[in-house]
């Protein structure tokens, strides 16, 4: 991934030429895979490259991509979060009922994000203070929050209602600004934020350090427990944001929403080249990974592949991508 010797400054054209050199494409395998995928799909169906379709893909990708950013932070610390799908559902239900009571949109969104962070923090506390394996802790959280969602919604969808507040709220999922869907903007903001955290803040540095070598990080005088707590809280908050978008789009919260989303998010992170062992990976990779999964879903629909075969095709592509990645290491 990293060349032993850092390149010195180059002119910008030279820089871009270098970026697209064969060598570099092989190094950034996920990006190469994305290009190949786009090429193949557009060959079979030129409609794929239509602007509308591309925007559609971005909008469909946004929910998984936003969750995947949180998942990247968690996986970089050598953890995992299986509870994101349940957190999405519960947050969505909370948000839908707040909007249903005509709570102002900004307040509803803020409260929902806070609740999502708290749900993440629950896993974080169990992992950091209880020394429970992240897999187990978040598996418990996944079951727990799904159960709470079922109790809270009584197993039925919660509608945001038919009033002005609900219309305003729907804009978050269905609106357009300058011809681009609002969720795509949200996705861009989340990725920008994720990049900033990882590369420009102390937290980001500590996340990489913790994932790379926990005892060295602890001995360097860093409060490792706090880092874990913050990371799982952020992951919960982003799952809640995804829940808000999903709810806004459908104007209602489904109690079964988000089931299996944790696996799509993990797949995106792994496709992006982040190591499940922690300490190694890039947020840009996760964006590419999420796009690959989004394009795959879209393309298989465009190519009229039945939904049963879609799963098999998706599994095959992900396996191939990960195999290539592992073998070239």
């Amino acid at each position: 991934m990293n060349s032993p010797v850092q390149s010195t400054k180059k002119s910008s054209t030279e820089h871009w030429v270098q970026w697209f050199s064969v060598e570099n494409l092989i190094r950034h395998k996920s990006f190469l895979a994305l290009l190949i995928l786009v090429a193949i799909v557009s060959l079979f169906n030129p409609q794929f490259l239509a602007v509308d379709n591309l925007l559609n893909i971005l909008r469909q990708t946004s929910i998984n991509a936003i969750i995947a950013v949180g998942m990247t932070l968690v996986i970089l610390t050598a953890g995992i979060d299986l509870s994101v799908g349940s957190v999405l559902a519960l947050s969505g239900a909370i948000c839908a009922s707040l909007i249903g009571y005509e709570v102002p949109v900004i307040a509803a969104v803020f409260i929902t994000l806070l609740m999502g962070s708290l749900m993440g923090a629950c896993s974080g506390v169990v992992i950091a203070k209880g020394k429970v394996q992240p897999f187990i802790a978040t598996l418990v959280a996944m079951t727990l929050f799904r159960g709470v969602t079922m109790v809270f919604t009584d197993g039925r969808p919660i509608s945001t209602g038919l009033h002005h507040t609900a219309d305003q709220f729907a804009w978050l999922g269905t609106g357009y600004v300058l011809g681009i869907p609002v969720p795509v903007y949200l996705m861009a903001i989340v990725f920008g934020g994720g990049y900033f955290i990882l590369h420009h803040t102390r937290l980001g540095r500590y996340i990489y350090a913790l994932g790379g070598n926990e005892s060295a990080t602890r001995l360097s005088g860093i409060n490792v427990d706090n880092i874990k707590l913050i990371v799982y809280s952020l992951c919960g908050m982003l799952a809640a944001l995804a829940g808000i978008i999903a709810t806004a789009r459908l104007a209602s919260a489904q109690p079964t929403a988000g089931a299996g989303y944790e696996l799509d998010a993990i797949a995106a992170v792994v496709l992006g080249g982040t190591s499940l062992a922690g300490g190694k990976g890039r947020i840009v990779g996760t964006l590419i990974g999420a796009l690959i999964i989004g394009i795959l879903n879209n393309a298989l629909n465009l190519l009229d592949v039945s939904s049963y075969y879609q799963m098999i095709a998706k599994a095959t592509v992900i396996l191939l991508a990960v195999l290539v990645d592992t073998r070239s290491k």
Partner: protein
Amino acid sequence: MPETILQMQSINKSFPGVRALHEVSLNVYQGRVMALVGENGAGKSTLMKVLTGIYQADSGNICYQGKNCVFSSPKESQDEGISIIHQELNLLPELSVAENIFLGREFTRWSGRINWPKMKQEAHYLLQRLGLSLDPARLVGRLNIGTQQMVEIAKALAVNAKVIIMDEPTDALTDTESQSLFRIIRELRAAGCGIVYISHRLAEIFTVCDDITVLRDGEFIKEVPAKDTHEDEIIEWMVGRKLTEQYPREPGSGEQQTLMVVNDVSGPGVKHASFELHKGEILGVAGLMGAGRTELMKIIYGANPISQGTITLNGQDLNCSSPQQALKAGIAYISEDRKGEGLVTELSVGENMVLSALKSFSRQIGVINKTKEQEAITQFIQRLQVKTPSAHQLIKYLSGGNQQKVAIAKGLLTFPNVLILDEPTRGIDVGAKKEIYLLINELKRSGMGIILVSSDMPEILGMSDRILVMYSGRLVGEFESQNANQELIMRYAVGRTTEEEYV
């Protein structure tokens, strides 16, 4: 003259850049116990690894039961009757005693089903032979360490071992357990086994061993019958190396201003340690592996819990329950285990350097001020002469010496009053060592109190102003360095002075 079961002759073994064994010989006699002694790094373990087939010798001869042998794997040597009991036990805690003893060699019926009655019966016989009344069906994880050690010995007996190697077997045992181990060793000896007994506890060696082989710096020094020698002579042979390296010693400032006081501190692996550290002083801490030196340092640094005692720094009580608090108070610790506890190998040189001090390069809400960070990194790379193509180089591509400089820089960037260096020159080439010594002296001049933990005796003698010696968790000696020499320190480090406790 007793019969020689095993003869290793002129064994040579090199690793890239290191000559681990040079013309080493070892004889094991039937019905006798051979002690194998030497300092840390003298080549004892390497020699045993060559014997059991974990390593292959570059040249030399192994003659076992009159035949020349080359073992290519531990399984091969075991099948031939050579068993080794490692320092760390190799038992599966979730399996029963019987299952552990016959692991990989289970008795089966014709159908492939395990013959449990026979397994238990055979295990029972073996344990009885060791004088142990232990239910073979018990889980090994539920037994205390001493009994586990016995199970390991039973395992060695089960393969009908003719040569049994014991690597520091009493490290984890209580005195009573050690006594019964000695009794078993005598029984095995009477049964005609040849035993190799590796230990740095000289008192024990004179209790159970018949012959002694001394290694030093990978070379064979001497083989003598135990009755023809005494402890002081053995110590002399163990450390007899000359001071070949130059140590840039600097006289202390003379004025003894107390910086840190450690008073009656106990904790995991440490018992009632008390000492003082002065400003501008290098305090050497000597001792053999497992003597509790690292444990004591980790208690001071807040990484291990303190169960008793007080630590004061500049007259103020310290109560560090985490490295964070210690660093804040002005204590930095550079771990002996660079890869495991010192550095994050997937981060760059620069990122590792500033890891402990990142707060001082941050604006509000934790945003890193990259310009300020880069300045500090560049400054310390130059000051410590870290050889790296750039600050962005991943630390794992650097040589051991340069990695160590980065680890030290990480501590220095927190501007500590007390710097604890745990084995700072282990696995580092001579040139880099010298640079690190010069750096230590420079820090000493600036008034820092430095604790230098090292297994390298000449280094301790060459650098320190005062020397503490640890033995099994206790501080057993303190010397002004001009009054100390290798023999004296080694005598304290092997517990020679506390010999009465053994008998």
